[in-house]
């Protein structure tokens, strides 16, 4: 029993964080917003970092890492508000294809040549379908046929298309994508808290920084509690899915729920702390807030995941009590 990341995992996360802090700035987000919101330079940078092949086996040109590393990095992508379809392609499609034994295009994914979109009945849209070279739909990797009908998201950096006949109810696809949405929500929540705290240190009223007012402090502290307690739930969900645990889906739903609640709470609190500035299109905050709204409903909304937990907890599918936290891990040990 050791609930920690390895030093290698921390190093990897830190290098991705540092890279994104340096390159994927709020100025870049504004530029993307004005100029068509996707950028080959950004995509190529992520590919050069090795992210496209992170989960692709080494003999197919990837780094052969696992979902724990991918989840850690998805948090960073959420923190930086990366909108290129790297998570869908590399952290969802790649492990899904590998699990299904559909391995022939994994090399293309690792090399950054193939972007994969994901269609599932749980969403009325498909993200980045217009950019994708292929789409996972009804249990297999398919070509993108007719030119997709665009849908307009509140999130200016999301590119959505109508799902049409694409879709299917694949449970593994849903679990992978819900886990990665949860990770990005945690990253976004962290960032929104940081933006609010930075603002509260600078903005002065009544002759002092608003961050010295206790009402503002307590708002921020409450967000910190919510975000920090979502994290271990997320790590555990990644671990459970990585190791194929029987109750993995329940843990993923828990992570999605906790991450959603943390991010929405962070968004509402952060806008409050920004005052009218928070209600503008000028301030950085809005990018993350809108991403949080989008991801909150994506890959199973609150009601969907609550129901999956409810079925297990009240319905009796999961053992309860103080000695059962790692019970599903124990079964598979």
């Amino acid at each position: 029993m050791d609930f920690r990341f390895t030093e290698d995992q921390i190093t990897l996360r830190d290098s991705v964080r540092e890279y994104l802090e340096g390159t994927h700035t709020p100025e870049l987000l504004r530029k993307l917003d004005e100029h068509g919101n996707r950028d080959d330079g950004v995509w190529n940078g992520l590919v050069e970092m090795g992210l496209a092949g992170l989960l692709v086996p080494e003999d197919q040109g990837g780094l052969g890492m696992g979902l724990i590393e991918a989840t850690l990095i998805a948090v960073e992508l959420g923190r930086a508000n990366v909108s290129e379809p790297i998570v869908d392609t590399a952290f969802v499609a790649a492990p899904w294809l590998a699990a299904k034994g559909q391995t022939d295009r994994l090399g293309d994914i690792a090399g950054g040549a193939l972007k994969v979109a994901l269609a599932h009945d749980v969403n009325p849209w498909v993200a980045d379908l217009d950019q994708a070279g292929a789409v996972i739909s009804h249990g297999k990797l398919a070509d993108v046929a007719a030119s997709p009908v665009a849908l307009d998201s509140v999130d200016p950096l999301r590119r959505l298309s109508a799902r049409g006949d694409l879709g299917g109810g694949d449970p593994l696809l849903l679990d992978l994508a819900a886990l990665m949405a949860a990770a990005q929500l945690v990253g976004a929540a962290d960032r929104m808290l940081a933006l609010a705290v930075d603002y509260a240190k600078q903005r002065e009223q009544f002759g002092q920084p608003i961050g010295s007012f206790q009402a503002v402090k307590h708002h921020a502290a409450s967000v910190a509690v919510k975000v920090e307690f979502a994290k271990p739930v997320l790590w555990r969900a990644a671990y459970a899915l990585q190791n194929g645990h029987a109750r993995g889906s329940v843990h993923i739903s828990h992570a999605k729920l906790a991450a959603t609640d943390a991010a929405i709470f962070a968004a509402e609190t952060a806008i409050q702390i920004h005052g009218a500035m928070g209600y503008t299109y000028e301030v950085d905050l809005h990018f993350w807030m809108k991403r949080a709204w989008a991801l909150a409903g994506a890959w199973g909304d609150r009601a969907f995941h609550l129901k999956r937990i409810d079925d297990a907890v009240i319905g009796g599918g999961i053992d309860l009590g103080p000695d059962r936290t790692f019970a599903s891990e124990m079964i598979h040990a």
Partner: protein
Amino acid sequence: MDLNYTPEQQAFRAEVRAWMEAHVPKTPLKTLEGREGYDQHVEWERTLASGNWGMVTWPEAYGGRNLDLIRWLIFEEEYYRAKAPLRANQNGIFLLGPTIMEYGTDEQKARFLTPMAKGEIMWAQAWSEPNAGSDMAAIRSRAVRDGDHYVISGQKTWSSRAAFADWCFGLFRTDQDSKRHKGLSFILLPLDSPGVTVRPIRQLHGETGFAEIFFDEVRVPVENRIAGEGEGWNVAMATAGFERGLMLRSPARFQATAKRLVELYRQHEAHASPAAREAVTQAWTDAEAYALNTYMVASTIQAGGHIGAEASLNKIFWSELDRSMHRTAMSLLGAAAELRTFADGAMNEWLEGYIFSLSGPIYAGSNEIQRNIIAERLLGLPR
């Protein structure tokens, strides 16, 4: 990351489980907040000690088993699984014990830790005063040096179970010209010392669970001081850290409550609201989150890390979780919630628990104070 127990950890769990099954009293003890129940709980402490289970993480030299924090969590899980009694010894083993371990002299360790692990001496905390609650630096009780003794005068209040305990520990002003955090010392003394008067206070539930302590020129030997004269504030902050941190409220306690809450829900499902159902599910998720976080922190500490102001996140999380679980139970019970004992004669533990849960956000540093700490020390907002 490895979320499996080792075979040795599983064997340890089995050992604790077998011992608890053989020893935990079959009928629940009376409340810890009253004389009769307190004595029963002290007897239980001695039973625990007879099995060498007093404080498993302590060195063997002081009556412990020298076990790591993961085993401590396993011990706690089995403890609550077996519905073992609350710990009358908690102020000693969870708070004063670690403080002495860190700041005490070898003599003090030998003198205080072993009897503590054996459940021989029960401790009360004496920090709060009528005018020093959240603002503990406003402490006025004085300890005036007289040769190799201190002469203590003043008043403490809200001291949990002081009416039943043997000794108390707390902060006293040893430098009479000092202000605020300076000039305070951390001193231990027997509650039956001449000049000590303990006046019980009835708590919300009606029992005399805490007390005022009056000191009238009480003579205490200087060797009862932990750490240097005037260094008491830092020592007390460490003690408070232990209280908010890993030990005082182990996740097992809340997971046991969450499990009982699910069972209660199933009994009352027919008339339960969807909101109550969601709150029950949320109880389980939050109790799990708290457990997971604790395992993470324990793993980190074990690997040489430490937690500081993060303890404030914990304290807020468990106290608000506990209150919300009990509030949910009260709403499920509906018109029966007010009954102290149900029509079938069973005690309404939810009512007792709800009342107690209302104190969680107040004691061990109120949740407002914890939010101040988080904002200023973790987030870096200006004072």
